[in-house]
């Protein structure tokens, strides 16, 4: 009755849809979520690349598809307000079908292929001030979801893909829950309940909390690991997290993170306004400040030339 499998398919396998007869050629596996495996595929007869997700369980995958359907409907009117790269977001869900492998029915859906690397890999290569920029894009992605009445839930580095120039996409919508319901999937170290910092009911603050912990993890990995591993569950609290905010790496973000951890933002819009005002300029200024600082040798050279000038004038006037 329940389809449950964890077979992997090797590159070159062709997936044929049972209902719509589309054919997809598997290039390679892209990753695994709680609900299934994702492959990079090419539609046979075209050059178009897609991501194809095969579900472990029919119900779980269908539930995810239902969420994507509603998001798709919602994104149409969103694009009229926001132009630019969000435009093709409406073609997110391409096709839903099943295929048969070894007498088993495996449900799958096809979606747009998003090129990019997980946010932690992205920031390892770039400098840290990119987080100011990428963080803002991520918050805006979350806002889109929240405006539609959804909460992402399982926000963690692996679920945030960043393209070369900092464009952000959320992947794996398996943990998306409607606001007011229980969070479907979560990862303990980013979970509000795990830190004894609130309920597991889906609200905007839940995502903002996970987002703040994701930032802490990216900015100050060792500190975050330490508090995550050391604490006994009953002793775990937001105090441990707030204790990390004094670290110099975290500095421009500290005030914002504090508010997100303590649930002090009324909603995501307020959180974004605050990020733009307090975090973004400070995080990026770190670098520009350094380039504007006049080097000491230049200062001394300038002082020396003034003295020389004075001497020259003195000698000219005197003789």
């Amino acid at each position: 009755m329940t389809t449950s499998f964890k077979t992997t398919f090797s590159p070159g396998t062709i997936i044929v849809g049972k209902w719509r007869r589309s054919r997809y050629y598997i290039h390679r596996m892209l990753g695994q979520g709680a609900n299934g495996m994702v492959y990079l595929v090419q539609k046979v007869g075209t050059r178009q690349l897609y991501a194809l997700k095969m579900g472990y369980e029919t119900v779980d995958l269908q539930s995810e598809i239902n969420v994507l359907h509603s998001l798709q409907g919602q994104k149409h009117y969103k694009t009229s307000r926001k132009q630019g790269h969000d435009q093709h977001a409406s073609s997110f869900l391409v096709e839903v079908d099943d295929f048969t492998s070894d007498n088993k029915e495996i449900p799958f859906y096809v979606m747009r292929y998003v090129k990019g690397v997980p946010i932690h890999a992205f920031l390892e290569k770039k400098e840290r001030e990119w987080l100011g920029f990428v963080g803002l894009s991520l918050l805006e992605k979350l806002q889109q979801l929240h405006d539609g009445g959804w909460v992402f839930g399982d926000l963690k580095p692996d679920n945030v893909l960043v393209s070369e120039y900092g464009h952000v996409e959320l992947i794996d919508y398996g943990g998306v829950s409607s606001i007011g319901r229980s969070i479907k999937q979560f990862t303990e170290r980013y979970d509000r309940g795990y830190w004894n910092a609130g309920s597991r009911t889906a609200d905007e603050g839940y995502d903002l909390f996970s987002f703040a912990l994701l930032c802490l993890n990216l900015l100050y990995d060792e500190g975050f690991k330490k508090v995550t591993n050391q604490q006994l569950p009953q002793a775990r609290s937001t105090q441990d997290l707030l204790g990390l905010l004094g670290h110099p790496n975290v500095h421009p973000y500290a005030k914002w993170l504090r508010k997100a951890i303590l649930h002090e933002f009324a909603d995501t819009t307020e959180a974004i306004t605050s990020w733009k005002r307090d975090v973004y300029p400070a995080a990026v200024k770190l670098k520009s400040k350094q380039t504007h600082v006049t080097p000491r040798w230049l200062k001394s050279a300038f002082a020396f030339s003034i003295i020389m000038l004075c001497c020259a004038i003195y000698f000219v006037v005197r003789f």
Partner: protein
Amino acid sequence: MKQILLITDGCSNVGVSPVLAAAHALKEGITVNVVGVIDYGTIGELGSIEIAEIAKAGGGISRVVGTPQLAQTMQMMTRKTVVQTIQHAVHKELTHILGDGSLEDLPPHQRAQVVEVVDELSETSPLQVALLIDASASMKPKLRSVEDAARDLMLSLQARQGTSQLAVFHYPGRHSGEEAVLDLDWTEDISRIHSLFGRIQMKGATPTGPAIFKVIDFYQYGTLNNNQAWNEEMMKREGILGDYVV
């Protein structure tokens, strides 16, 4: 929806077969999930077979994990089992309507509607989970983690839109007539889950089967005052379920 979540680290060795007890529970409408919890070494071939068998007979899921994964595993199992139970119920309704009710046979757009109903009911149906904890000597160092996991499970249950209650039992009891001891009566209040196992005297025997029977009894003849109201709500709910699918 009624569930028993058994937490153990080895084989039963006294009394009636726990597999039979689990089969009986399922017959009474109670799903049985089993977590085998091990930190060092292995649970042994016999132990892992028994765990899988109990869950199969009880219509539930079994997992063997270490204490760090205990909380998340219990949460995940409870959630999955809820969805499965609802799915079964919806399937039954579908068989009346479509003749063949298999979800996989439905075209994707119809499947979407069925799953929407399953999701809705999984979130809103009343749920009772009875934790049954093996408190034999080898489990002693793990009881702290078990309690933390129980609190974490309660947190997840509280987030549901439907009423959710948790009760906690351990076994064996102090004397031979006492197969299982009630540590915490049905509650929706997370603050009541603390120092549950302070006074437990650890014993060597592991009468898993008799303990499961005891919990089934508790489900049926629980002396709770609000049990009546609860059952009425369950009946009402089941009525709603029927309406939904039709």
